[in-house]
């Protein structure tokens, strides 16, 4: 069964949380890119990206996330990614992005506080 892709921003607290569900691939990535760009361009210093309900991510999704992380780091900001699924973490690790300016967390509370 394919879980429908969705992306939404929660601005309830100090740190905006971008929550994504479904599969991030070449088809759905433009929607993620649009939302992440809006959040980053709004001037936030720290952004949390919740991928706990993402079952699949490919190179286009990682490229978009890396682009946002680069933009944030230019203004001394940071992108904290919540990612608990082993297969999704594996993709980040192979890409080498998790050792750069993207911080991976398994729990939301830690991603918000870091």
């Amino acid at each position, binding site marked *: 069964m*394919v879980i429908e892709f969705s992306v939404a921003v929660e601005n309830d607290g100090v740190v905006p949380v971008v929550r994504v569900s479904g599969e991030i691939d070449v088809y759905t990535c433009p929607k993620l890119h649009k939302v992440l760009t809006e959040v980053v361009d709004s001037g936030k210093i720290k952004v949390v990206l919740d991928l706990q309900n993402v079952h*699949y991510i*490919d*190179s*286009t999704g990682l*490229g978009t996330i890396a682009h946002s992380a680069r933009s944030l780091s230019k203004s001394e900001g940071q992108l904290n990614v919540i990612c608990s699924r082993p*297969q999704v973490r594996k993709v980040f690790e*192979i890409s080498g992005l998790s050792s750069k300016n993207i911080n991976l967390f398994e729990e939301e509370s830690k991603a918000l506080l870091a």
Partner: protein
Amino acid sequence: MSQSPTVNIQIPAQSDFVGVVRLAVSGIASRMNFSIDEIEDIKVAVSEACTNAVQHAYGGGAGTIDIAFTLHAEKLEVVVKDSGKGFDPANAVSAKQDGANDALFGLGLGLTFIRTLMDFSEIESVPGRGTVVRMIKNTPVATTA
């Protein structure tokens, strides 16, 4: 000895069809007793080959991508082929190279995933004539024998 069965799929070179290929990969790999982790690895690798074709082969124009799955006793062989403009694999930047533009970064990263997650891969691409990505994942029996 009977010939290994082959499943052929042709999709339009459009982004919304790449997910269809992933569903096919899941069904085919499940028949071959791959573990869930191995099936996910194959899904990523095959999907990346299709994504490369969608993004780079036809320059945004119409075209098709042919995917052939051959179910050998000891391995799954997947060939992803397009008839697009091709590229020089040497120009695809490393996934870890800084300063690359996003399109080249994605291409390099996709190739990194294919090489890392499959047991064998090769890419033949001739400018103006298209690209063929061939990859193999050994079955659990072949790996442990």
